[in-house]
């Protein structure tokens, strides 16, 4: 399942997205272990079946 968390870095708001199953996530054909985006961009991710690298 995709998890989203609001976090703050240097006073700026971000959205951290990751898989609670330890899987890579994907957006527009690019895969990430986790994705941290500035708040307000509305970037959506899907879960892959590839395990994240340790």
């Amino acid at each position, binding site marked *: 399942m995709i998890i989203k968390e609001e976090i703050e*870095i*240097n006073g700026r708001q*971000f959205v951290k997205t990751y898989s609670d199953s330890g899987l890579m996530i994907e*957006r527009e054909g*690019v*895969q*990430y*272990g*986790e*994705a*941290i*985006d*500035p708040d307000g*961009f509305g*970037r959506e991710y899907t879960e892959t079946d590839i395990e*994240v*690298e340790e």
Partner: protein
Amino acid sequence: MINLLSESAYIAQTNKIKTAITNKVNAIKASFTRIGAKLGANINWLEDVESTLDDELTAINTELVDKGSTQAEDFSEVAEKISDIQTGITPTGQIAITQNGTYDVTDYASASVDVPSELVKLLNNELVELVIVEPVYYYNHNTVFSQQPNLEKVVIKNSSGTFAQQLFANCPKLKIVDIDGDSRGFNNAVFTNDASFDTLILRANHVWSMYGVTTFNNTPFRNGTGGTVYVPQALLSQYQNATNWSALESTTFLPIEGSIYE
């Protein structure tokens, strides 16, 4: 008592003996003729056998010569191939080719190989500056350039593929990485524990993807010391809002144009 024959009886008796002798002689002659014929036939057979053997021996000899010639050509080809690769390999012996096809390559069990001095430095942890001009595929293999205690600078002119896990990790003196080419992504922990790494130049006209902020764990880009990423002016705002790039806690994005790296 002496029995005297008449003249006519004597002549008759003599002729009878002559006839008998003549018959015997003729019989002997006939026997010799038959024996001679048999001997003649045997001699012809032996001559045929000898001729056949000569032919077969000639054929065998021709075949051996042909095979020897073919083998010599094969060995010659091998020698040429070895000669072709002698740029990188220095033979420690010679291949002996003889007409009967025996050869000895045991001396080739050992060979010295010339490798680029940069690779020697890499293997000996002596590498200080790494400049890669041609497209190579090392980037796809984890940790290839990691744990270089003296590596300070990396310049890649024509990158390709995704930079693999920990590619440059654990290089304590690495300070600057300058990349141009088609590569589009950093995998996990590429620069982890590069405590001196504070300057990254990305010259491509596209935004690189990043596995996660863990790509830069324990580097000045995250640990508060401060790192700078130089990118094309046209991409500056994209990097500042890009996934994960924008979340590097102590990173400044500057344009290449107008900088000392232009």
